[in-house]
């Protein structure tokens, strides 16, 4: 009788199967083919390594399903290398580590995935695996590609050499996958062994290779691969194609994401009005509409951009191009003490520094990794975009070309500051040259759409979880600080309302009432906890040209940069339910209590420099502390970025004032 994945079997009867293999052997594609969308990504506790875990039923026969837990381990070349991913794999096989949510015990079976087109090199991990004396199945993947290259592998002889099941398969076409799942349910401990030292295992793999494969030196025609490699890594052509591909990538991210972003915006707007009409006016109403819905909506709006970035990057990685691009970037970054491995982390940081810093896990050298983590938040993330839009619009109203130039300058300034920071740190606290790169260049192929979609889904969920927990909490706290203590109506407002009542013309009366409301809102904002905090810190920001309201905006940005725009909107307009362009205009024209403009030319430039360079993001600092291995790194990042931001903004403001600007 077929069982469902209900609790017909307890966790202890589920078989844990660890999936092991070299990078670029199609291990994850094979895992996804067996597990489908049921997999989730989990971290190993106390480390930055992650694995995909899936609860699946493997059918020994159609009537005999066995509940199993598949763990897709990080791709490694050997279990004995001094790398965190190699150590975690060795710990999982020894039963001393398991992904979060799973019980640590010795796996019940081991699935070793190897590349049929690169058999000899892959035999190292096979030899190391069978020495572990665990029930093992070896999947010889990409058998279709091997056939095309004229490579012949004798599966029966191979199984005889290893003393365990060997299945020839192709994760891409599905060939042999059923046979593989059946073999997994009957996996047995290999009755052969392999040497344990590196030289011994190398000799053993040569012997096995000679027995199971045609010992041919036949070379397939790789003219196209050669040409593409030479073009993509060429000093000029390589850089040009890199710029073209990345421009295309960003164009697609900004262009295609704008539609779903509009829908999300509309949806949250509708939910806000619906909730607003449902809940009676009062504290709960304000908390839900202004705190929860506005706060979460303002973050979730960036979900399409983040998903698109990861999807397109996954496609590029699957195509084989990214490994080539890493070498192009390596040439450009090396003089600044960063390696080509920093490319994906820094590129991802242009969407959000958090996934960027997390992607730095893949950098093998510790100092290279630390330098990348410290530099990543200088890249202009999407949360800065609303602020850039606001400030460039204020600086150059109705001059789109100048706006675009200022926008580009912001991105360039961030990259320049990052490179300068790396150069400085690599000559002081992270002394030493970046480690030269040695990277496998996978074959060019059509990317696997399913794997890319699954990865995108995973990353999107991580981002949504963040929006639903941390950002939600911060939004509520900010709302509370801004809303309390409540202030009563001011004398000036009471007088204005009295005048309005006396007026006959309803239009004039309405104008006076609006003025009275605005006065009350400003007064409430100034007297709220947030307003008082702003007042306390304002003297510190006065040399940069910021008044109390701007100081509040800057301080509120520590929760998330984009909060600046909404905070300013709430403060100056007294209402945040106006259309976007109107909000921008009302902020641009906002005045102080004494009638002077808040956003002068000098202040706007000062703010622009400040927002490009400042570390205004609490979640980024938390992730830096976690990934770099201590709060000292996060403190250093905060201190250094704040210093750079403050001095640059100060210099910009004072220079413009000294030059006679306003």
């Amino acid at each position, binding site marked *: 009788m077929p069982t469902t994945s209900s609790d017909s079997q307890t966790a202890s009867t589920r078989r844990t199967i660890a999936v092991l293999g070299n990078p670029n052997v199609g291990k994850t594609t094979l895992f996804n083919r067996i597990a489908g969308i049921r997999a989730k990504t989990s971290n190993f506790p106390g480390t930055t390594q992650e694995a995909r875990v899936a609860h699946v039923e493997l059918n020994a026969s159609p009537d005999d399903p066995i509940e199993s837990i598949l763990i897709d381990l990080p791709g490694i070349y050997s279990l004995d290398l001094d790398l965190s991913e190699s150590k975690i794999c060795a710990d999982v096989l020894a039963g001393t580590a398991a992904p979060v949510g799973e019980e640590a015990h010795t796996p019940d079976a081991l699935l070793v995935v190897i590349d049929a087109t690169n058999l000899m090199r892959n035999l190292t991990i096979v030899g190391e695996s069978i020495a572990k004396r665990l029930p093992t199945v070896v999947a010889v993947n990409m058998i279709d590609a091997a056939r095309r290259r004229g490579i012949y592998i004798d599966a029966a002889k191979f199984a005889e050499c290893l003393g365990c099941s060997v299945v020839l398969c192709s994760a891409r076409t599905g060939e042999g996958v059923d046979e593989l799942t059946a073999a997994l349910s009957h996996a047995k401990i290999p009755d052969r062994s392999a040497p344990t030292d590196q030289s011994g295992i190398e000799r053993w793999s040569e012997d096995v290779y000679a027995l199971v494969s045609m010992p041919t030196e036949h070379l397939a025609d*790789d003219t196209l691969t*050669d040409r593409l490699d030479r073009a993509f890594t060429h000093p000029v052509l390589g850089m040009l194609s890199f710029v073209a591909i990345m421009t295309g990538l960003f164009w697609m991210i900004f262009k295609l994401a704008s539609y779903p972003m509009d829908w999300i915006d509309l949806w949250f707007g509708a939910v806000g009005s619906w909730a607003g009409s449902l809940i009676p006016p009062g504290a709960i109403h304000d908390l839900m509409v202004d705190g929860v819905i506005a706060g979460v909506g303002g973050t979730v709006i960036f979900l399409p951009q983040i998903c698109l970035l990861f999807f397109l990057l996954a496609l590029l990685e699957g195509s084989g191009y990214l490994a080539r691009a890493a070498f192009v970037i390596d040439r450009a970054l090396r003089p600044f003490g960063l390696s080509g491995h920093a490319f994906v982390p820094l590129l991802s940081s242009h969407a959000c520094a958090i996934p960027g810093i997390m992607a730095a896990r893949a950098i093998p050298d510790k100092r290279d990794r630390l330098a990348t983590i410290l530099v990543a938040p200088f890249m202009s993330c999407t949360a800065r975009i609303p602020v850039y839009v606001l400030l460039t619009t204020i600086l150059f109203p109705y001059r789109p070309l100048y706006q675009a130039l200022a926008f580009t300058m912001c991105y360039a300034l961030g990259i320049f500051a990052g490179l300068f920071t790396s150069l400085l740190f690599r000559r002081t606290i992270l002394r030493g040259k970046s480690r030269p790169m040695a990277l496998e260049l996978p074959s060019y192929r059509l990317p696997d759409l399913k794997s890319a979609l699954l990865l995108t889904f995973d990353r999107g969920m991580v981002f949504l979880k963040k929006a639903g927990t941390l950002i939600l909490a911060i939004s509520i706290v900010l709302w509370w600080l801004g809303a309390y203590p409540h202030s009563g109506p001011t004398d000036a407002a009471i007088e204005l309302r009295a005048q309005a009542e006396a007026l006959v013309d309803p239009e004039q009366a309405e104008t006076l009432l609006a003025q009275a409301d605005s006065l009350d809102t400003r007064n409430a904002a100034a007297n709220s906890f947030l307003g008082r905090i702003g007042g306390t810190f304002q003297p510190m920001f006065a040399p940069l040209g910021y008044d109390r309201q701007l100081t509040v905006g800057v301080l509120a940005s520590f929760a998330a940069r984009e909060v600046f725009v909404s905070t300013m909107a709430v403060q100056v307009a007294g209402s945040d339910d106006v259309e976007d362009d109107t909000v921008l205009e009302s902020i641009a024209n906002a005045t102080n209590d004494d009638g002077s403009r808040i956003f002068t030319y000098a202040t706007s430039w000062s703010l622009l420099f400040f927002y490009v360079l400042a570390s205004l993001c609490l979640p980024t600092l938390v992730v830096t502390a976690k990934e770099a291995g201590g709060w000292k790194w996060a403190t250093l990042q905060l201190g250094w970025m704040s210093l750079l931001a403050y001095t640059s903004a100060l210099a910009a403001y004072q220079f413009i004032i000294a030059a006679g600007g306003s």
Partner: protein
Amino acid sequence: MTTMPIHNASMPKASRKAVPLTQLSRGQRGRIDCTDAASEDCSMLRAMGLRPDASIQMCRLGEPCIISLTGGCGGGCRIGLAKDIASRVMIHIDE
């Protein structure tokens, strides 16, 4: 710094003298002799397939240097190496 032991250095049809990998010209083939790099780089390269006696072919010279592992994989596996590392990999050129 460690040096990989020379394993069966005198292969037929290969020069006896070991030269840096960067001396291969495009399309030329050779066999790895040893790698003179930091120990962690050395183990990594060996695990990636650049082990003593592995036969390789030069695909691109310069920065990066791209080679393909020709023995045991039909030339399907390509490895990109920064010039720094490539110049430390010693090989015997096939004659």
